[in-house]
């Protein structure tokens, strides 16, 4: 153990992830056809969504069971704004801002009410269910925002695709959409990583580790948790924007429980307290769902449920930390402390007042 732990913003792991990302961004269109590229675009959307959950849960210690509320709000905000405005620059910005505002409002009541972690899970879950019911009941011509009908359970079809900013007629083709989606994923990863390396990020992690201690040091956990929650909501909203673009369509299913469950599973499987883990988890589980959906033998819900229970019981840390620990064990010298690994609580080291 080195006595002083550095938390460098730019580490070898970070650089390699970004390089792999850029290689995929540029190389994939040459390797697959349009269908494969579209498939990869939805993987990227889900990976951004997973990043948001990984940030809020893995680093902020806030278990949000309803992250899909922000995905859906982002998606709907984009769809409604794009149908009304034509040019998609503002709709993209709105798809980030609307979920953030909603998260700020909800988070204020939750964090400033000082409710416990489990209650936060339950409240966010119910909010998602209620948003689902609310949007689901908007079929009929009277429910519209400007030029955009909400469409109830049928959703909003033919949402305009992203265009070059300022040129509403230059809509992106599937390849352009892939660049946008993968670019957004890399951007989100870099931004979140920078946030975590900053002073703010360290306080967030400190609060996750020991809220009382952080509070005694003079930080207000409520505010930091609220900000973490809001940032996560913005990232999830962007994921919703990409997701809507992928199908040119959005429906209330974005709010349903399976969506919230999936993102929890991505993070749990990939690894809590990492950013790469959720991305890999998202890609892996999406692939598994496609496999399961293709063969019509196992119900996808059953598969997700079994995977979730098995991981909670058997591998609660997730795959990336487990693999990394194995890797670190076989590295003889210069044991660098992994940048973002949560420290396991020292057993038998009781803190007074805990």
């Amino acid at each position, binding site marked *: 153990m080195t006595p002083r732990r550095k938390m460098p913003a730019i580490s070898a792991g970070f650089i390699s992830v970004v390089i792999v990302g850029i290689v995929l961004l540029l190389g994939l269109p040459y390797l697959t056809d349009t269908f494969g590229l579209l498939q990869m675009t939805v993987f990227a959307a889900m990976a951004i969504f997973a990043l948001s959950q990984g940030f809020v849960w893995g680093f902020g210690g806030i*278990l949000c*069971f309803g992250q899909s509320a922000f995905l859906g709000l982002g998606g709907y905000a984009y769809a409604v704004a794009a149908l009304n405005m034509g040019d998609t620059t503002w709709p993209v910005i709105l798809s980030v801002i609307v979920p953030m505002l909603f998260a700020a409002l*909800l988070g204020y*009541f*939750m964090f*400033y*009410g*000082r*409710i416990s*972690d*489990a*209650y936060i*899970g*339950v*409240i966010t*879950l*119910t*909010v998602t*269910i*209620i948003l*689902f*019911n*609310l949007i*689901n*009941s908007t079929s009929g011509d009277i429910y519209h925002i400007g030029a955009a009908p909400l469409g109830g359970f049928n959703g909003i079809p033919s949402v305009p695709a992203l265009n070059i900013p300022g040129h509403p007629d230059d809509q992106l083709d599937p390849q352009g959409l892939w660049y946008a989606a993968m670019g957004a994923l890399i951007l989100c990863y870099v931004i979140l990583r920078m946030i975590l390396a900053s002073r703010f990020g360290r306080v967030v992690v400190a609060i996750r580790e020991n809220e009382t201690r952080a509070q005694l040091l003079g930080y207000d956990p409520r505010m930091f948790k609220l900000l973490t929650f809001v940032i996560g909501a913005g990232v999830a909203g962007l994921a919703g924007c990409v997701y809507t673009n992928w199908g040119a369509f959005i429906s209330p299913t974005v709010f*349903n*429980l*399976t969506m919230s*469950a999936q993102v*929890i599973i991505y993070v*749990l499987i990939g690894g809590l307290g990492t950013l790469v883990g959720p991305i890999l988890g998202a890609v892996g589980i999406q692939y598994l769902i496609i496999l399961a959906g293709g063969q019509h033998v*196992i*119900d*996808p*819900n*059953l*598969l*997700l*449920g*079994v*995977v*979730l*229970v098995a991981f*909670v*019981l058997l591998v*609660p840390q997730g795959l990336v930390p487990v693999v990394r620990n194995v890797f670190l064990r076989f590295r003889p010298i210069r044991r660098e402390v992994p940048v973002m690994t949560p420290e396991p609580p020292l057993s038998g080291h009781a803190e007074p007042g805990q």
Partner: protein
Amino acid sequence: MDLTGLLAFNVLVGVGTLALITVGLGVIYGMMKIINLAHGEFMMLGAYATYVSTSAGLNIWIAMLVVAPLFVGLVGLVIERTIIRFLYGRMIDTMLATWGLSLGLIGLTTSIFGNDPRGVSTPLHSFAIGRFDASLYGIVIIVVAVAALVGLFAMLRGTRFGLIVRATMQNPNMAAALGVAPPMIYMATFALGAALAGLAGGVLVPISGVSPVMGAAFIAKAFITVLGGGAAIVTGTALASTLFGIINELVSFKSTPVIGEVALLLAAVVMIRVLPQGITGRFLKRSL
């Protein structure tokens, strides 16, 4: 006047329904501090148990009042033994595991029964409140809800089992030192909560229908009510269902059921800000 009568009756039925769908969740949460995210699916299993046994020719009252709770209680027992007991003391992990369970149960029922919703016809007819017709079945819901709450109260207060359960709840180590086996009590409590969920599912079949995803319709309301109620199971459930039931029914009457549900959520979120421990966390602390 007639309208007021009908509205009052509907509010009572709403409160009864809320109490009924919440009480099983409250038992498991209040005693074991486990948030059972599979509660809605336990109700769904109760509904399917009722549907299957009435389809097989069983009397509907026996199906919903006996078969459904017994079957789901048994399922709960198995689940406690195979999954939950490894996770005691890890609240978040239990939530995740029960959520996985809920998805698994939805997937399993879909594989067996398919996606299409089914129904069981209402065994009773309607009666007149002045100019309006109200369903006599609403009275059954109220009666079952009151019976469940009163029965639970009587069991916890009056029986030796209730005494042991309350002791284990307060201090499992002390109870163990006095010769009680906490694992057995936890197992029984989880099964009891599951059975109550099954009862709720069975009783609500005639008005809600049966489908694999029906659990989601109840779970939000049930959670909000449990949180609003706070630590005391019986008092908390009764108070919170009364409060939220009235809000929900009145707003639903003025607008739509969905808006009613939104009003219920808003009321709950605001209340959580004021009373983070729920109603019985601040008031009536010594109650059950």
